[in-house]
């Protein structure tokens, strides 16, 4: 190869490298004295979608409110850190935690065995369950009636696996609310989603009706697997919040009932 060619090759390689160097920070996390790793010192960055009312929703200044956000804030307070809620689409939430875009996700993630291979779950901070929703005139009542019917669910949610158990005709949407909206508008035969979400949709005037509650589920904070000490500290914080009634208070504020204790 001649010299001129090598020279131009160098320039080609240098340009993208220079661009990357200019805009990149370091991926290394801050390490505290006890081994807890944080993305930013003194800050607890947790994600939620902001599209799961009343668990997380958007305020007028682009910040978030909701049950999940208050729990996240309370955990940060217990840890002695500043809470930084970060909004990400549900689809990217877990990936965001795994790749160091956030310290944890406080976003109503349901604990299941498959997910446990990829991330750590804290102890459950509330209990819920997937429920069947239909239009009021539907004759679907239980899971047995779902065979061959068209069921809509949110993308990336555990409800998709549940739906697939009963029918092979599953449609996915970006959020639970979109799925319920489509059902209310006359599309699909049923939606499987969280009973709290369905209940608030009915309160908002969606033309849907509650049917069978399929099973109980446990919702927990998601922590990346390279950060076991943070998991331990979050579990301690949650336990303390159960003892002193903080979790119960937040639950009553949003749902008029305590969904943070295990149902009998």
């Amino acid at each position: 190869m001649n010299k001129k060619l090598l020279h131009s090759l160098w320039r080609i390689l240098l340009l993208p490298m220079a661009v990357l160097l200019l805009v990149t920070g370091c991926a290394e996390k801050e390490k505290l004295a006890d081994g807890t790793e944080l993305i930013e010192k003194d800050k607890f960055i947790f994600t939620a979608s902001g599209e799961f009312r009343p668990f997380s929703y958007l305020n007028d200044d682009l910040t978030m409110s909701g049950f999940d956000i208050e729990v996240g804030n309370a955990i940060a307070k217990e840890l002695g850190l500043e809470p930084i809620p970060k909004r990400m689409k549900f689809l990217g939430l877990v990936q965001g935690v795994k790749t160091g875009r956030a310290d944890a996700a406080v976003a109503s993630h349901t604990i299941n065995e498959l997910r446990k291979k990829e991330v750590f779950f804290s102890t459950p901070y509330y209990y819920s369950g997937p429920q069947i929703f239909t239009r009021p005139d539907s004759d679907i009542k239980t899971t047995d009636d779902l065979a061959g019917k068209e069921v809509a669910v949110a993308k990336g949610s555990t409800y998709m696996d549940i739906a697939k158990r009963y029918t092979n005709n599953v449609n996915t949407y970006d959020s639970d609310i979109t799925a319920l909206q489509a059902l209310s508008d006359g599309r699909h035969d049923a939606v499987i989603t969280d009973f709290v979400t369905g209940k608030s949709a009915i309160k908002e005037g969606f033309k849907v009706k509650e049917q069978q509650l399929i099973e109980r589920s446990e919702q927990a904070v998601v922590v990346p697997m390279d950060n076991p000490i943070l998991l331990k500290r979050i579990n301690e914080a949650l336990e303390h919040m159960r003892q002193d009634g903080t979790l119960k208070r937040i639950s009553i504020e949003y749902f008029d009932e305590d969904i943070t204790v295990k149902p009998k």
Partner: protein
Amino acid sequence: MNEIAHFFEAFGSSSNLLVKAMLLTLELTVVSILIGIVIGLFFALLKLSRFRVLTLIADVYIYLIRGTPLIVQIFILYFGLSGLFLIPDFWAASLALAFHNGAYIAETFRGSIQSIDKGQMEGARSLGMKPSLAMRRIILPQALRRALPPLGNQFIIGLKDSSLAAFISMNELFNVATTLGSNNFDEMTYLLIAALYYLILVGILTLLIRMFERRMAVSER
């Protein structure tokens, strides 16, 4: 009638948030198009180079970008590379959009450079200019003017493509509108509002592009 009133009420009450979101959309678009133009010109010149290696590099880049969906490129830059280095959110979105736009702009530039009559280069060479000088002084000024209409087109496509940055935590127009839709249990209204904002933006952009093209055409009158 009732629905129209409802639409405008929602439009008014969300304007505070959506104007902020619109500014971020504009910022993403302008930054990514400007970087995209630099990338595009760079790869167009590579593609026209006499050296096979350089042509090949440009071909591979254009093939990779044109051959994969933009949303995949955005996710790879945002999540995939974060083990090596963490690109800040805004720059991950801007760079993904810039590299994407760059591939299309490269082809635009290549086409417009090749469309300049061979006699132009020959004339410049016969006056004693080196090929690189002839390219800079004679070919590129004419070629860039010819590239303006497709560039304006790419600008508008880039504006709408920026909506995919919604999936990596950018609070831009599409993201905020769909979130408001799901928060208010009223998705259709807010999607229509988002469409209206995009129409207004594209309308203004179209006018600006037309004015700019007219100014650049002065020398051809």
